[in-house]
């Protein structure tokens, strides 16, 4: 009898053990694989763009490199567009999304956000000969925006009804459309517009008005507390020791603001 109970309890314990272990956490699988896969933009300067060697470079790429270094693993950059970065995360193609990602309630339903790592204002920009100072002035004009980006969602809320909002698949399309004059104005990030102006483009995206202060966050899958904690730890450490400030100076030309 006693023997029977001992065996039974041992059997139940063995069956229950897998329930406790569950599936490997993301942080564990990253360490085990030795590789961190990060989704980064390649059409959104200065966060991610390509040079003559067609290699990605930018704020987000440096951020990804910093995190990979702290985790002690290799970095694998996966270029993405605004429309596929979240599906990439959800389907496990990447571990993190570092792609000038803004936070909003719809996105919070499907992914988690870390602490902010970069300042970012969304705004409407365009050449000097379009006089626009507030949303109401947009009446009758066309504005290009990247589909699904925070600029898209926010602009749709505040724009008057006769504004022609053209949504492009990715930033490449949006910027191309603006530069070729297919749209009058462009809604994008302040630093992106500045980066474009710096390259002496045919049409200059000068600031018209700012839509929203929407800092950048690292995107993670839901239910990954260890990975989240680790990423936040790395962000906080890099703010404290000035590494993040150096990245900001390099790519944005301004020091990191006091409060992100």
């Amino acid at each position, binding site marked *: 009898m006693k023997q029977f109970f001992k065996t039974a309890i041992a059997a139940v314990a063995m069956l229950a053990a897998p329930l406790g272990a569950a599936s490997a956490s993301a942080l564990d699988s990253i360490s085990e694989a030795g590789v961190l896969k990060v989704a980064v933009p390649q059409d959104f300067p200065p966060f991610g763009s390509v040079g*003559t060697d*067609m290699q990605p470079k930018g704020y987000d790429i440096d951020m990804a490199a910093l995190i990979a270094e702290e985790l002690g693993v290799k970095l694998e950059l996966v270029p993405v*567009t605004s429309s596929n970065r979240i599906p990439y995360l959800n389907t496990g*193609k990447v571990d993190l999304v570092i792609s000038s990602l803004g936070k909003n309630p719809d996105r919070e339903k499907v992914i988690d956000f870390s602490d902010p790592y970069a300042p970012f204002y969304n705004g409407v920009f365009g050449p000097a000969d379009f006089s626009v100072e507030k949303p109401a002035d947009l009446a009758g004009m066309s504005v290009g925006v990247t589909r699904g980006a925070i600029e898209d969602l926010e602009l749709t809320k505040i724009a008057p009804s006769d504004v022609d909002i053209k949504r492009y698949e990715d930033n*490449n399309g949006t*910027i191309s459309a603006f*530069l070729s004059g297919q749209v009058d104005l462009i809604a994008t990030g302040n630093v992106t517009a500045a980066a474009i102006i710096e390259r002496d483009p045919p049409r200059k995206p000068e600031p018209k008005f700012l839509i929203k202060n929407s800092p950048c966050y690292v995107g993670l899958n839901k239910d990954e507390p260890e990975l989240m904690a680790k990423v936040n730890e790395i962000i906080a450490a890099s703010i404290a020791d000035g590494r993040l400030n150096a990245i900001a100076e390099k790519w944005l030309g301004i020091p990191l603001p006091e409060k992100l």
Partner: protein
Amino acid sequence: MSEFSLWDIVYNLLLAARWTVLLSLTAFVLGGLVGLLLLMVRTAGNPWVIRLVRGYVELFQGTPLLMQLFIVFFGLPLIGLDVSPWVAATLGLTLFTSAFLTEIWRGCVESIGKGQWEASASLGMNFTQQMRYIVLPQALRIAIPPTVGFSVQVVKGTAVASIIGFVELTKAGTMITNATYEPFTVYGCVAVMYFLICYPLSLFARHLEGKFRHVAR
């Protein structure tokens, strides 16, 4: 001031064009193998198999290539396979090619007179032997011109792969356009490069058509 000179543009486009050629070749060869397999099972005559293959062909000929690529790209990870743009593009384009090729080849096989089948059957050949020694060799000769002609469609189809992020000639063109602000020049170069790859194939297909035109029917 863009960092790209005209030579930089052409050089980077040429590098990307390698991927276009590689993807085209891979999809064409793999698609051909799958198409041949489908052809064999379809010709064997089982009515259910015929319906299935016909449905397969209708599906790929009746939907946009872009949608097919999206489904492969976003769908495969859901069943646990990790898929890169290269794998998704190869798989999607292979399936697309296989459907069209099997249909082209079906027409060629069906144009082989019934007499050939009957004669080889009376020599005691089974289905595989009939296909291998009598029917396919003859069908092959008729099939070559349209098959080579279709290869041009495969090369053009690789351009759609740029939309799922595969960096081939068109995607490189988009990226360089935004780095240089010269869409006319860049897309012009892109078009010329595609032309240089496709036109020889088109000419070759037409030449073959002429050669085989006098094949007895």
